[in-house]
């Protein structure tokens, strides 16, 4: 056994030849490759794969389509809504009486409110506020949460303790109460609603990201990268982050719905968007008095909140499955 190599001329010459660089024919193909392996298509990317999986999820696609539709309608609203349905904020005092509280009709598809404003127009303009809250507030949460979570997971020790206890303190407060308190300090207005919801959202993101990093860190491919001589920075950026970020994408998408709900709740309570700016929550609040006489005042903004929140939750749920690389297809 000890002389098993002696017939090899390379060894006897003190192996000067690194001959595999010259493109030697390779070792014969292994038989452990099944035909299924060979049928794999050419180039695919991680995101391409995720997209293919997402596309097959009908509910998630419905959510995505609905979210995109609302974005398009909200963005383009200025070009067609006021012309056709009237100013969502303005008051035409001369005709209030004949135009107030009209039932849905072809002229006013969702009816009108007590000041004669078109509900359809107000729902669409309300989408602007809701989407802005969802996206801006969630971005603030994600930004703070990712930094905090990464600091806690990488540096550990007292950083970890400090940040996680701070997160616990945030989570221990009743959410809406905390939001109201923040707005009381910051002042009313929708910019402050963004900030308040954004600040309140970070602890969960930080926790999810921290635990995700900690579990990814234990993976053998992180050891393998270290054994390859990769620097700490490279290991974090290339091996840990991409694997740890998927839960954040999922969680953030679902939380967009949560942020929209919180804005609606704050506006309903009069702490958020101020009249006459249309906001779904505010519209619900104004509709309370007409719950039985003019139910369309409540039904349409309520349906808008329901469907939009549901759309983001379904999309997030679909993303969770789509981003799981281990789910083979």
């Amino acid at each position, binding site marked *: *056994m000890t002389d098993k190599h002696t017939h090899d001329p390379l060894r006897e010459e003190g192996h000067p030849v*690194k001959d595999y660089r010259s493109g*030697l024919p390779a070792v014969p193909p292994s038989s452990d490759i099944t035909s299924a392996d060979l049928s794999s298509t050419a180039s695919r990317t991680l995101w391409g794969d995720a997209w293919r999986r997402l596309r097959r999820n009908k509910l998630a696609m419905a959510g995505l389509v609905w979210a995109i539709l609302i974005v398009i309608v909200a963005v383009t609203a200025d070009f067609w809504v006021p012309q056709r349905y009237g100013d969502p904020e303005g008051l035409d005092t001369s005709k209030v009486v004949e135009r107030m509280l009209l039932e849905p009709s072809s002229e006013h598809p969702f009816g009108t409110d007590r000041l004669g404003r078109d509900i359809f127009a107000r729902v669409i303009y309300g989408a602007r506020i809701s989407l802005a809250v969802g996206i801006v507030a969630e971005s603030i949460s994600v930004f703070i949460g990712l930094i905090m979570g990464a600091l806690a997971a990488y540096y550990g020790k007292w950083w970890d303790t400090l940040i996680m206890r701070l997160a616990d303190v945030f989570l221990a407060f009743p959410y809406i109460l905390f939001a109201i308190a923040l707005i009381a300090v910051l002042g009313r207005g929708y910019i402050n609603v963004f900030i308040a919801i954004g600040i309140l959202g970070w602890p969960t993101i930080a926790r999810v990201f921290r635990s995700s990093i900690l579990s990814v860190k234990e993976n053998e491919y992180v050891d393998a990268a270290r054994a*390859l001589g990769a*620097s700490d920075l490279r290991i974090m950026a290339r091996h840990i982050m991409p694997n740890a970020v998927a839960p954040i994408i999922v969680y953030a998408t679902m939380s967009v719905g949560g942020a929209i709900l919180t804005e609606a709740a704050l506006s309903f309570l009069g702490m958020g968007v101020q009249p006459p700016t249309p906001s779904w929550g505010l519209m619900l609040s104004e509709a309370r008095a007409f719950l039985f006489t003019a139910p369309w005042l409540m039904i349409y903004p309520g349906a808008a909140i329901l469907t939009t929140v549901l759309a983001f939750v379904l999309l997030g749920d679909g993303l969770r499955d789509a981003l799981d690389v281990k789910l083979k297809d």
Partner: protein
Amino acid sequence: METLLEVKDLKTYFTTRDGIVKAVDGVSFDLHRGETLGVVGESGSGKSVTAMSIMRLIQGPKGKIEGGSIRFRDQDVLAMSEEEVRHLRGDRIAMIFQDPMTSLNPVFRVGDQIAESLIIHKSMKKKAAFQRAVELLDLVGIPKPESRAKDYPHQFSGGMRQRAMIAMALACDPDILIADEPTTALDVTIQAQILELMMELQQRTGSAIIMITHDLGVVADMADRVLVMYAGRHVESGTADEVFYKPLHPYTWGLLDSLPRHDIDEKGELCPIQGQPPSLISVPPGCAFSPRCPYAQPICRTDAPVLRVIEGGHAAACHFAGDPTFQRGVVDCAGVTS
């Protein structure tokens, strides 16, 4: 022959709440260019920790290399800065991990992962490195390497992943390849292919291999020299022929007796070593193997045997090794010897 690696009296300890775990406690060996060293022992005998120590992958604060020396081509590995060690890892000393299913990053294409060490160590451009990765995949016997390099790890079977891991390890043409149970997670036919591939590549590149395994069959196939470990200690070492045909240590005898053999026409019953390996926190006084050793004498339970060279390069840590009257008995499976 050029000595690549010299490990002397290596001690790696872990501090835990229950006490100090002496995972590696006095291991010594040399590794020459083009040679294969087999490291064998039961699970938990310190084989992997030895490998991790060589690459300085033991991470504080719990684990620490407490003593001994590791020299790679006359450089003191233990005295290197973290930066210097990084240039050693992956470039001069590469490692193949046990489980190919978890050692590849699921979010990167296989080709990118192989290219990574070339980008790190050889400052290659991304495109050139990827091209090289394709060549390496071809070298390790992956068909259609151009398209397979663009696949993700989950699109590879276990055997193919291990081939990809080998390609990764070979990327920078390392002097030493540490293979930590490279075939344990694979089924038997694939095991044979992977081992064959490793031997073939070794002949072409002339790199030295440290083959860590608990499979004596693998060692018999591949190794030039063998190091037997028990409870973190170096119990026997020598050429593969010496260790297999003239084993000196009762633990090695026990290991060999636990193997199924087709050349001995006897009852055909396997005789495992009785008992369990000791906890590394409280290794028995004296010889760590004494509680399980059918030949143990009073001295074995009080004095720890020193590793002695018996003849040539054949060394064993047993009080009685080399004593002509101390012979391997015929083992009865009740654990009694005659």
